[in-house]
């Protein structure tokens, strides 16, 4: 990990709401995130925790009429993307920050050749004039970077397998060497062997173009093998945040939700007959509980969890949003 203090991405107190049929869905409720240059941050959480919403917000691509960013700012290299004009945003998307979507099967346009779909992002952002031939060569070179022969750029998406399509998506995302790569569950739709290949390849590419990565996933194994730091998200809040060691070390104190997540992974060393999943379901985002959002499912919740603000306990790089973390230093808020 490259230790520089330069923050590529800073998210400050971000609140996002969706409005539908008179209901307000509180998808993201005041999250703070920092990604330094060259750092990989894993954003982990269940379905519906607000991970993808956060990812789309970074490129200011949330649906215009239904989503509202009610508070907070997102600074990409110091510039607030939420205040940018559409024209300036277009210069950011695909060039300074790009995104790999979850489902490669539907994320490529079926009627255009894959080469054209890569070329499109190059043409959009290239600073120098290039001939069609040069574009072809460049597209071929990018395809080879993701392990696809350059000659296949004249084929259509339906001629590619799922894993190959995701490689093409990655090729589109890295084509302009972005400083921030957002990967929204890039391997969820792929089968396990392909997952490993795609992750290995992403790791190589990350080194090669030296970009920061925001990896969104619900797979702790993927996080352990890819990320430098981890944020655990629950019901639109970050409940635990720290370096990979902070989160994965069983000696450390953890948020009960994080404990629950690890409890639902089979352990090779300790023999158990049953896994310990977290009981209950994510709270309804139109009607979030007061106090700690996790208290209805928390095995160790107390009366104090039901009311008031939950303080964030800090221990070095490790932050936990839980009342019970008494022996950690409290951050003054």
């Amino acid at each position, binding site marked *: 990990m490259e230790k520089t203090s330069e923050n590529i991405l800073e998210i400050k107190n971000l609140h996002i709401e969706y409005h539908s049929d008179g209901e307000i869905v509180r998808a993201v409720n005041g999250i703070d995130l920092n990604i330094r240059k060259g750092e990989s941050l894993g954003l982990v959480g269940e379905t519906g925790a607000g991970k993808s919403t956060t990812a789309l917000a970074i*490129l200011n*691509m949330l649906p215009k*009429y239904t989503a509202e960013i009610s508070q907070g700012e997102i600074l990409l290299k110091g510039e607030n993307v939420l205040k940018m004009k*559409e024209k300036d*945003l*277009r*210069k*950011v*998307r*695909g*060039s300074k920050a*790009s*995104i790999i*979507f979850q*489902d490669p099967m*539907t*994320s*490529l*346009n*079926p*009627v*255009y050749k894959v080469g054209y*779909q890569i070329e*499109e*992002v190059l043409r*959009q*952002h290239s600073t120098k004039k290039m001939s069609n031939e040069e574009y072809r060569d460049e597209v071929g070179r990018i395809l080879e970077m993701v*392990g*696809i*022969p350059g*000659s*296949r750029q004249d*084929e*259509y998406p*339906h*001629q590619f*397998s799922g*894993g*190959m399509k995701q*490689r093409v*998506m990655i090729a*589109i995302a890295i084509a302009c060497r972005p400083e921030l790569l957002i990967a929204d569950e890039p391997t969820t739709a792929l089968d396990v062997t*392909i997952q490993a*290949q795609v992750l290995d390849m992403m790791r190589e590419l990350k080194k090669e173009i030296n970009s920061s990565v925001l990896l969104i996933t619900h797979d702790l194994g993927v996080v352990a093998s890819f990320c430098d730091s981890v944020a655990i998200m629950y019901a639109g809040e970050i409940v635990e945040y720290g370096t990979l060691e902070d989160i994965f070390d069983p000696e450390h104190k953890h948020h009960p939700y994080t404990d629950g997540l690890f409890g639902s992974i089979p352990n090779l060393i300790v023999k158990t007959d049953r896994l310990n999943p977290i009981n209950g379901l994510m709270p309804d985002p139109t009607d979030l509980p007061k106090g700690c959002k996790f208290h209805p499912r928390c095995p160790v919740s107390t009366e104090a969890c039901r009311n008031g603000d939950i303080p964030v306990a800090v221990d070095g790089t490790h932050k936990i949003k839980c009342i019970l973390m008494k022996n950690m230093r409290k951050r003054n808020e």
Partner: protein
Amino acid sequence: MLKYVIKRILMIIPTMFIVTFIVFWLINITPADPGRIILGAEASQDLVDQVNHDLGYDLPLVQRYFKWVGDALHGDLGNSYYTKRPVYDEMMARFPYTVKLTFLSLGMAILIGLPLGVLCAVKQYSIADNILSTLSMFLAAMPAFWLGLLLLLQFSLRLGWFPSSGITLGWRSWVLPTFSLAVGYTASYLRYTRSAMLDTIRQDYVRTVRSKGCPESTVIWKHAFRNSMMTLVTITGMSLAGLLGGAFVIESVFSIPGLGLMGVTAIKRKDLPQIMASLVMLGTFFLVMMVVIDILYAFIDPRIKSKYETPKKKVSEKNKDVEGSI
């Protein structure tokens, strides 16, 4: 691809046989016969039978059908029972007017309905969308002949801007017929385009294009619209059938000497050769357009095109190279 096209064109032949036979049969089961209609209700049955015999109408259905098919294959569609003139000549003189009316209306439906439909989809729930969607519902529900009569009343009788009938005044003769035929289709086109675009605009690949930083015009027209084309081409094909049928009615309202007017008159008079001729012409025209649309599919969607193409060896070899890496 070529093989597929030829196959589609050859399919027209059996279809035409089936269509013509059904019409022959339908006319046969209606009461009254040409002899009776020519001579009137007062004529004696002997005389009517004589006329029918002269026309060849007394032969059994199947025999009559194959005689007609044999003649038609020799390019002879017979003479009209009434005018005694070759049907073919009259049909060829009239056909262009019907085609003109149909394509003018289709053109109007596409040129107006399509952009407005895209606009409604892109600005969903805006005031413009609400107004256009509601308005198009009313217009689509309006029968063409009724609208035609209203337009005649206002613009030809009261204001005198356009002629009420015939085609002798150049483009002005075509304004009212085209308009009355096209309004309903423009409205449906708008609605179909709107829903097709609303569907594609929400697709993941459209989001991908946005994430590349492409301008909104590229997102809408190059990516979303191109994928809506499949639906729109299908709708165009279906509209063509409706427009041809509508042209029959509108030609009667505005007295345009097209195939429709000829067909309607012929049906009233049971003028079999003329009915069959207009039917064969319209049927062929329609079926050819359907083949054109099927071929268009392949150009719009590479997945369909690849289905018609025999797989090349080259592709499978290329795949082999990559197997190691994926």
